[in-house]
């Protein structure tokens, strides 16, 4: 029985390990054999992470879904997956009723699926940067933003809290001990991947505080017990305790604090 379902291999934007398949038409019980045959034809010779682009699929029956599940299993066995992209709201709703969401990841479009793939499977880091005026009033917003990002990238709430504390202390130090200049902002960059988060803050140095800061930084770096009565010392000591790596560079031109924290440590 002729069906109107069509499969086409598409450009995967050069993403190694990924095959993009554009599917169109009606996925019904009549198309089960075609679905299985198509995926069988690509399972050996194509990268096993399959993104099925479905924006031109008009219907999706439970039996067709079963066929996709069987095909997916073959890719999973090859350390791949089969995910959906571009489903209409009606189809998402239907698949949800069939319990498909428990098995298949669904993305708004192919690009979102590729971004998720490179983050989760390839360990790519994603970067958020912020340039902000040297004022304490911005720090709560900043630390909460970074905490939210960490949580939503799968870090535990405990991890997210520690990250929030690191961001808070680093930014507070930059504001309190850096140069106060309306022309120079503080630059924060956060690189996050599935294994760690890297936080870097760069600010203009306050010439009057450089020597004191250098002394403090060397104390923290040398692992000597810092003077916990010293407010500045406490902050840096806290950052050091919460992080896996802490590097501080202080010069007349600027101060840079670089913190690395591994996920789950």
């Amino acid at each position, binding site marked *: 029985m002729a069906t109107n379902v069509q499969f086409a291999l598409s450009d995967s*934007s050069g*993403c190694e390990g990924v095959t993009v398949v554009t599917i169109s038409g009606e996925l019904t019980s009549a198309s089960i054999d075609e679905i299985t045959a198509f995926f069988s034809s690509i399972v050996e010779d194509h990268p096993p992470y399959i993104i099925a682009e479905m924006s031109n699929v008009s219907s999706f029956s439970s039996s067709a879904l079963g066929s996709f599940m069987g095909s997916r299993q073959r890719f999973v066995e090859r350390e791949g997956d089969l995910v959906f992209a571009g489903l209409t709201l009606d189809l998402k709703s239907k698949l949800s009723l069939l319990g498909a969401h428990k098995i298949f990841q669904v993305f*708004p*479009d192919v*690009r*979102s699926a*590729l*971004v998720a793939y*490179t983050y989760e499977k390839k360990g790519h880091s*994603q*970067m*958020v*940067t*912020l*340039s*902000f*005026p040297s*004022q304490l*009033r*911005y720090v*709560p*917003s*900043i630390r*909460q*933003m970074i905490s*939210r*990002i960490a949580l*939503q990238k799968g870090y535990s709430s405990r991890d997210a809290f520690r990250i929030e504390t690191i961001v808070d202390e680093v930014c507070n130090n930059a504001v309190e001990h850096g140069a106060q200049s309306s022309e120079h*902002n503080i630059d924060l960059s956060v690189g996050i991947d599935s294994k760690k988060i890297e936080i870097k803050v760069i600010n203009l140095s306050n010439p009057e505080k450089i020597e004191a800061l250098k002394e403090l930084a060397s104390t923290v770096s040398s692992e000597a017990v810092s003077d916990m009565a010293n407010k500045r010392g406490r902050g840096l000591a806290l950052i050091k305790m919460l992080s896996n790596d802490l590097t501080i560079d202080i010069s007349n031109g600027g101060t840079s604090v670089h913190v690395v924290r591994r996920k789950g440590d």
Partner: protein
Amino acid sequence: MSTTALRQTLTLCFPSDLGYIPAMRKFVADVLTAHNFSSRYIYRSEIIVDEVCHNAVMYGSKSIEAEIVLIMHLTEDTVEFFVQDEGGSARDVQQLKSAVEKPRLETMSPGDGKIGLEIVKMFAEELDFAVGEDNLTSVRIVRKRDISEAK
């Protein structure tokens, strides 16, 4: 507190990924809270940032490395937002440009396209679209603090 007129700029750059938008809009809301804007102003600004960034992700560059830049220029009673992205296909850029430049619909129905942008037009005093070199697209939105807005 400084007695000089407030004029500050924050520049945020993040991956072009829908998942980042909630954190970004909440950041904008928190910054505006810190500047004592009213809750209504803050909510509307959050919606604007959400909708414009959403468009930038959906219709901007398809590169998986693509980023979005969100700039906030703050004064005592005005916030100027810029949302910049590397631009999508010529067709997508032109569609977005047309949608921004079209006069605001007087009445809307949920079946209308680009509802998000119409909401932005309702809330923004100024809304502009520009395409620069290398297809860099920029949506500019200005919102003024309403004197009658009480927190």
